[in-house]
């Protein structure tokens, strides 16, 4: 019967499903970038389709979380933090989708010399997101250990920054042979790949504050 429905369980499940969608989205992003760099167009297009669905799925879960949270006045002391956390994480799938769609439309020509570098940026960005999601899961259960994951997320982000700098040096340092407009396009592509880790870092710093608020 609807009246006896456990709203707490429903919210717990929705949060879990939402985090799963974000994790899947980030993985699809990585696989999509890899496919593009390898020139596997068919697989790449499948990833684009998949991430669009995953982004939609995550949005639906986010709406449900908001609805259950406020309609039934659950965790009133933490609801604002929870909502801010979930809302800011939504950017993960948005950016992932945006990057893959840009690649599909703009189709930048990646020099073979840069393929590994781009691959590494995508991989580390994915790692940053993955670590962040683990941290968020822990914030919900074992909040004392969250700090380790926040540190790791920040570490991955700074690694991405280093990789980004290196790839920019390669792009504009004369090692590759292409026009300035192509270089600028590759530069933008590199920035977009790194943006995912920036989001992870931003959310991680919020999580650090929310973790303190959870302690009684």
């Amino acid at each position, binding site marked *: 019967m609807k009246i006896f429905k456990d709203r707490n369980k429903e919210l717990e499940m929705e949060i879990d499903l939402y985090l799963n969608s974000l994790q899947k989205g980030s993985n699809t992003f990585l696989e999509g970038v890899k496919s593009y760099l390898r020139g596997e167009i068919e697989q790449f297009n499948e990833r684009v389709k998949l991430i669009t669905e995953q982004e939609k799925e995550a949005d639906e879960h986010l709406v449900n979380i908001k609805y259950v949270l406020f309609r039934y006045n659950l965790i*009133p*002391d933490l609801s604002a933090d929870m909502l801010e956390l979930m809302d800011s994480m939504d950017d993960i799938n948005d950016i992932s989708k945006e990057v893959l769609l840009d690649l599909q439309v703009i189709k930048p020509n990646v020099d073979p010399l840069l393929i590994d570098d781009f691959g590494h940026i995508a991989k580390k960005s994915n790692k940053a997101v993955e670590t962040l999601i683990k941290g968020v899961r822990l914030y919900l259960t*074992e*909040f*004392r250990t969250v700090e380790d994951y926040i540190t790791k997320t920040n570490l991955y982000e700074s690694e991405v920054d280093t990789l980004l700098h290196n790839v920019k040096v390669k792009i504009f340092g004369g090692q590759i042979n292409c026009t300035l407009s192509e270089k600028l396009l590759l530069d933008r592509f590199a920035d977009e790949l790194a943006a995912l880790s920036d989001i992870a870092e931003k959310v991680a710093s919020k999580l650090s504050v929310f973790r303190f608020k959870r302690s*009684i």
Partner: protein
Amino acid sequence: MDYLIIGLFLSAGLFMGWSLGANDAANIFGTAVGTKMVSFRTAAIICSIFVIIGAVVGGSGTSHTLGKLGAINAIAGAFAVSASAAFTVMMMTKRGLPVSTSQAIVGAIIGWNIFAGLQTDTDVVVDIIQTWVFTPILAAIFAVIIYWIVKYIIEHTKIHVVKMDKYTRWGLIIAGAFGAYSLGANNIANVMGVFVQVSPFNDIVIGNVTFAGIQQLFLLGGVAIAVGVFTYSKKVMTTVGKSIFKLSPINAFVVVLATSLVLFVFSSEGLYNFLTSRNLPALPLVPVSQSQAVIGAIMGIGLAKGGRNIDLTKIGKISIGWVLTPFISMVTSFVALSILQNVFLQTVVG
């Protein structure tokens, strides 16, 4: 005596009950309602039910102690004493202070003793004053202990934040129900204690069950408290819940449980008999200040956290109210008794 006159005189006690419902009962669920973990409606229903049960089942111990302080032997006198205490409580409530009903009634009874030219039993007064001092201290001790236990559980278990929210709500409701029961048992003496000697009710026997006259009196008082909870306690709940100390719902649970335990140990005849029968020291059965217990528990949490975030000015303001309450009540009682005797020609001392 005419039922109408009896009703009129009892109305002071009922008014006292109403005031208690508006203040002290609100203290139990104030933090829970203030943090929006429990709706006011739910809190009011639970509080009313358990306050009545507590009053009827366990209200005799503390009433006995008040009887020892001053055995008011005329219903008009009881009316004046009760009305004076209620008036004092109402005035202080209007200023948004979590005022002590216990101190108001004690002050009013002493006022009757002075008016009647009777000696006030200083041993009982000392006993009562000791509990006034001990109540916030004990509440703080309980709060610190409960706080550390709860903190340990939260930090060493993997309970999901959403599940924790559910458990906290249940915790607040159960502790609140326990607190309401203890409040009824402990503070019904403030409401109907002065009428015990002059109770107009006779025992009702149905089969093997006897519903004593005193219990009927306490039932009436319990209902009055319930009316106070529903009609006026929301404002005080917000004051207690929000302005003294920023409480999280879990801290609110600690406060409610610590407060409830304090009221329980000062009202449970079972616990008292258990301890005294084993030659262990027992706390006297005295109506204690719910407000003091809440403030003590909140301070206990503050201390456990390292003494941060406590609004000392507000606590100071409330403390002044505690000192003023018995004094104002005593003077009001003396004046009311004079008017009732000399203007309305009522017998206020039997």
